[in-house]
């Protein structure tokens, strides 16, 4: 592909995103609630696109296609995890939606600090998500750099592709915060769905003659088309582990949490719970057929995760390839933008606010200062992501990206206990998170040689975390009853609430 065409497409695309950022800026005020959550006015359709665009990075659908190619239809388990998060969004999500609205909370760590009446809980949770998500964001910039370098055969160097995405994301997120993120996600999400579907149809019909012919060809390798899948990967333990870990992690992931908190109404929250698996299923169906085209036409492909970009580069006409590449860049951008906004708000609320409060800043002035801090933190965190993309050894980035979701999953027991168990204490929460994370990393890296019998190491770590949360909570003093009532009175009958107060 010619460099000039790619650069022109990138510039036009980035101008569109920055313009959407500018539109977001026009209706954004200098309050945290507005900059970080769009004043909690997220409607249904934008919610669908921003949630799914945030969830799926380019790596996701490269990885999904690669897994279908290698292991067959067992990869569908991930669609089940997004369906299984539905009841969690309804029950736990409604609680956090109400509490966050009542007390003006804008992210998960602020909720945890408030609920447990302890800065330590928010700090530990914040540290875990920052360590897990900055490399995850860096991986998006790396993806942009590698993709553009590959399709232009080095015409756009790796560093330019990575910096391009980082600068564009920073510009539009700084400009309009959450509103800009949502509107660019609508465009980027729509591109992702449409171009993935178009690419799938073109690949199926030009490479194999149609769906029936494709199934006839692949049917000879029946293991890939049979439940639970090939290579013995999808054992019962694996399927249960993935179902539990990812359903809980989808709910806990801080950038997705902000979308539950930002829902305009309870009806929007319910819509998200129902529409999320629909969007996921659409992506997975496309990836399944794309992978099967790969199986039929390119057996033994050395790097299955590259099968999708490799095929579209050979098959799509240039103008459509250009759009497909933009869709890949859009998918990386729509994941990075949400992460950086969420992390900035966490740093402002958990790390900067206490300092400002000690200096006597309060009320609207404090809120304005925190909004400014969130804006200033955006390029700094993006810079951190770029450093990871340039200097992080690929093996280490690979490990961190692989453990991001399980690491966030291990915050889930603390979050759930905060929402449902009055007796949960800050000491229990901190011990649970720290010990389960350390145990998980030790098991995952093989530093602790414990036979797991096919279970994911995060499952054992979570069991230990829950036990510690219960035992330490029962052994320590809970926050004052009046404080805990702030969180639970909302969910009790008015008569009961009156009796308590």
């Amino acid at each position, binding site marked *: 592909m010619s460099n000039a065409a790619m650069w022109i497409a990138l510039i036009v695309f980035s101008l569109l995103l920055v313009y959407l950022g500018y539109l977001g800026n026009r209706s954004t005020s200098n309050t945290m609630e507005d900059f970080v959550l769009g004043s909690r006015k997220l409607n249904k359709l934008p919610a669908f696109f921003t949630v799914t665009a945030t969830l799926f990075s380019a790596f996701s659908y490269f990885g999904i296609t690669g897994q279908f190619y290698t292991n067959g*239809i067992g990869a*569908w*388990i991930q*669609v*089940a995890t997004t*369906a*299984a998060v*539905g*009841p969690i969004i*309804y*029950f736990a999500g*409604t609680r956090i939606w*109400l509490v966050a*609205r*009542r007390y003006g909370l804008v992210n998960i760590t602020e909720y945890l600090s408030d609920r447990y009446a302890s800065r330590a809980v928010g700090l530990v949770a914040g540290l875990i998500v920052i360590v897990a998500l900055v490399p995850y964001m860096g991986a998006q910039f790396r993806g942009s750099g590698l993709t553009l370098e590959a399709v232009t055969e080095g015409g756009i160097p790796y560093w330019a592709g990575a910096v391009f995405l980082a600068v564009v994301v920073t510009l539009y997120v700084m400009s309009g915060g959450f509103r800009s993120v949502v509107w660019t996600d609508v465009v980027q999400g729509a591109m992702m769905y449409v171009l993935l579907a178009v690419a799938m149809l073109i690949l199926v019909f030009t490479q194999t003659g149609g*769906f*029936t012919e494709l*199934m006839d060809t692949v*049917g000879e390798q*029946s293991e890939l*088309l*049979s*439940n*639970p899948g090939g290579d013995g990967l999808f054992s*019962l333990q694996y*399927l*249960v582990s993935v*179902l539990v870990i990812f359903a809980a992690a989808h709910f806990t992931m801080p950038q997705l949490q902000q979308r539950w908190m930002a829902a*305009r*109404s*309870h*009806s929007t929250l*319910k819509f998200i*719970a*129902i529409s999320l*698996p*629909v969007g996921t*299923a659409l992506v997975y*169906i496309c990836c*399944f057929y794309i992978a099967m085209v790969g199986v039929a036409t390119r057996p033994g492909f050395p790097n299955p995760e590259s099968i999708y970009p490799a095929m579209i580069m050979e098959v799509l006409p240039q103008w459509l390839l250009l759009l497909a590449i933009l869709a890949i860049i859009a998918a990386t951008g729509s994941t990075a933008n949400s992460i950086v906004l969420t992390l900035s708000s966490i740093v402002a609320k958990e790390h900067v606010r206490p300092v400002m409060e000690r200096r006597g800043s309060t009320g609207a002035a404090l809120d304005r200062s925190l909004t400014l801090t969130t804006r200033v933190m955006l390029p700094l965190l993006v810079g951190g992501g770029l450093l990871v993309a340039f200097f992080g050894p690929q093996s280490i980035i690979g490990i961190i990206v692989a453990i991001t979701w399980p690491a966030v999953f291990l915050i889930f027991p603390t979050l759930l206990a905060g929402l449902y168990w009055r007796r949960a204490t800050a000491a229990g929460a901190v011990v649970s998170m720290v010990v389960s994370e350390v145990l998980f990393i030790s098991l995952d890296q093989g530093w602790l040689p414990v036979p797991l019998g096919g279970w994911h190491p995060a499952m054992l770590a979570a069991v230990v975390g829950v036990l510690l949360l219960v035992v330490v909570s029962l052994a320590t003093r809970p926050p004052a009853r009046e404080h805990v009532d702030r969180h639970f009175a*909302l*969910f009790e009958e*008015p008569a009961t609430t009156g009796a308590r107060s």
Partner: protein
Amino acid sequence: MHRTIALILGVLLAALMVYPWPEHTPEPIILGVIPAPLFAWIVWVAAFIAYVAWICYRWDPYAAIVQRFVDEQAGRSGGQEVQR
């Protein structure tokens, strides 16, 4: 009653997901385009979405709490904002 039904249905659906049927055969290929196991999993997702919709719209155990909160917020803000 609703709680018991929701629990039983949830456990049943989760079990069907992790112990998928039919196993170890791609046959039949439904309409020549979808292998039976994938079709079964698509039906599973549709069933689970129906289950979540039943929780959200038919049972809706948080309806009264949300309504009370919305009324309270509307009272505070002079009858504006906050939709259910």
